[in-house]
């Protein structure tokens, strides 16, 4: 197999890798905010439960969670396994990443001094207005480097989807490596991941620059 055919074949998998990446971000970013707000809830029971789930999601391997979401319902209730593996993959990834994002959001929100809330209250802002107009914009700015870290990890984590037979780029690479008894597909996969992350890094860098309006 020539290098060009190999790259062409693996590009097909790139589409599926991108599908996991974008859909996970789409769901995990807002979900993480909900989780973070619940985690900071004044109600001890709610924050306790959420805290427990976060420790479970961060304390067990993503691959295990992926297997649980995909095959769990079948083993527990005899339900059919989804033919479209993108669904369980995105569910598992979104929940897992939401847990990480939530903790980053929480760190960001709690880093804002109390005085700002008091100042906002004096100026007559409602709690929602204070959060949306004053707190959130600062939080976004502060957490961006940590978010870049997670997003880059997400790109590489997509390869875990092979555990449930979702044919993303690394799976196809493995298949070619097998049939050709060659190491080359792994090199190609490595280059693909690097380029993907290079783009991600640049885009996140642009955001950071745009938000750096005080210096």
């Amino acid at each position, binding site marked *: 197999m020539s290098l060009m055919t190999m790259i062409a074949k693996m590009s097909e998998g790139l589409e599926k890798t991108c599908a996991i990446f974008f859909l996970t971000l789409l769901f995990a970013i807002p979900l993480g905010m909900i989780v973070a707000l619940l985690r900071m809830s004044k109600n001890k029971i709610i924050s306790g439960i959420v805290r427990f789930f976060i420790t479970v999601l961060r304390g067990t391997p993503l691959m295990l969670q992926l297997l649980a979401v995909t095959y769990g319902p079948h083993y527990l209730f005899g339900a*059919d*396994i989804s033919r479209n593996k993108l669904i369980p993959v995105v569910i598992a990834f979104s929940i897992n990443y939401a847990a990480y994002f939530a903790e980053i959001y929480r760190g960001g929100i709690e880093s804002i001094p109390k005085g700002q809330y008091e100042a906002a209250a004096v100026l007559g802002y409602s709690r929602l207005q204070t959060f949306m107009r004053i707190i959130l914009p600062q939080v976004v700015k502060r957490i961006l480097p940590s978010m870049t870290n997670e997003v880059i990890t997400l790109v590489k984590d997509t390869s875990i989807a092979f555990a449930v037979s979702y044919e993303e780029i690394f*799976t196809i690479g493995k298949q070619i490596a097998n049939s050709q008894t060659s190491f080359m597909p792994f090199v190609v996969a490595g280059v693909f991941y690097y380029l993907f992350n290079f783009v991600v890094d640049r885009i996140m860098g642009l955001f950071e620059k745009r938000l750096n309006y005080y210096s």
Partner: protein
Amino acid sequence: MKKYLSLLMAAILLLALAACGSSSDDGSKFIMGIDPEYPPFSYLGDDGSYTGFDVEICQAVCDTLGWKLEIFGVNWDQKLIQLDAKECDCVWSGMTILDSMKEAGYVISKPYYFNTQVLVVKDDSAISSSADLAGKIVAVQLGTSGEALLNEDLSDLAATFKSVTTCDSFLKCFTELSGNAVDAVFVDLPVATNYVKEHAGFKILDEQLGAEEYGIAFRSGDKDLCAKVEDALATLVSNGKYAEIAAKYPDIVDNLIFLND
């Protein structure tokens, strides 16, 4: 204080390195690379240690040659890379001999098992032959000869499928089948026989596809090692030990080349 700390760190590092190096070959250890999820050839037994036909035979070979057997579970789709990396001395686990292995220079033993591929479907499935698979989804384990066949010799058949799902273990293939995510599993006959016997609700189609043989793979240049193992195998066959072990695995006896010459 800092100086002592760094000295301590250095000592720990050295120890760690020494621990890694201690697996140096004293010439008498033989590391067998197996797929730990491949009954009846190699699998994790009820007592928690690896067993299976290949494992028992290899143990007997090592006993004959006075070697100490060590078992290493390989990642099946990277078995040859792991062999090259000297993580194991051979791959011996119901491994189908492929031309590409020989072309890549690996030393392959004489074949010891004659194998075919079969299709496994659910009991109530309407599929009765490979011709009924048009527009269906078929599961296959990555790195197995079934996968290679669908890509090469049987690519015409594979072209009629709706799609092929590649799983990282054959157990997942069967899980997918049981959960209706695929319509059939394409797998080696002994594995299929073993699985269907232990799990209700599946049947093997009476159609054998793709004849092939199992062998043992060694690194290129390990011709002597291969010859030693082959000689030991011949001894075991002639003194009846081979047949004795084979008798414990009635499902595969008929296809063992050494016993059916």
